């Protein structure tokens, strides 16, 4: 069975640009969450979606936005990129969003 898939695996962007990261959850999982992991730190919660509705938002600026599609896949968008946005972005899916999260391998974003 396919796990949580994220694309792209790596990308490099310039300051001020916009980026879209994609996540496909495990089949049957209706909840998707996004986390940012800066080098040397633990993951920080960005968003959670369940049944296409936002159920939680972390302490991130409005430059960060996300959505969940009818097939439960999700996109994370970041506008006006800053150097500090360089990080590993992790997507996690779960059946109901309560527990049992499975993480993808992440997208490594480098802002130059």
């Amino acid at each position: 069975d396919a796990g949580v898939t994220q694309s792209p695996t790596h990308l490099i962007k310039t300051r001020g640009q916009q980026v879209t990261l994609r996540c496909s959850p495990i089949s049957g999982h209706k909840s998707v969450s996004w986390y940012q992991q800066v080098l040397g730190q633990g993951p920080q919660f960005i968003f959670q979606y369940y049944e296409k509705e936002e159920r939680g938002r972390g302490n991130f600026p409005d430059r960060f936005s996300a959505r969940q599609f009818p097939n439960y896949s999700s996109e994370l968008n970041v506008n006006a990129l800053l150097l500090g946005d360089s990080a590993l972005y992790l997507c996690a899916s779960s059946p109901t969003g309560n527990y049992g999260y499975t993480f993808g391998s992440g997208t490594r974003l480098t802002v130059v």
Partner: protein
Amino acid sequence: AQSVTQLDSQVPVFEEAPVELRCNYSSSVSVYLFWYVQYPNQGLQLLLKYLSGSTLVESINGFEAEFNKSQTSFHLRKPSVHISDTAEYFCAVSDMVTGGGNKLTFGTGTQLKVEL
């Protein structure tokens, strides 16, 4: 609000020796507790979890963790480590609120380095 403290940023240990990675949490509500492992350039893999019931939980590869409510701790232990256990270990908590809005709050991680 919840917080997780992993007191040790790095733990060096010789192969076949025992190890304990410490985790303390703070929360005003009941929580679920997790340990995740991260190998270099990879995502997070669930190692074990405490949801309810027995306070001692075990993984398939020999790790165990014990939930201690009075000390708000969830320390990870292994009686005999292997080189392949070298990785970053993250402790995490999630509150028990239902409705699909449970986020994970992570500690800063502990780098376990197993040496020959």
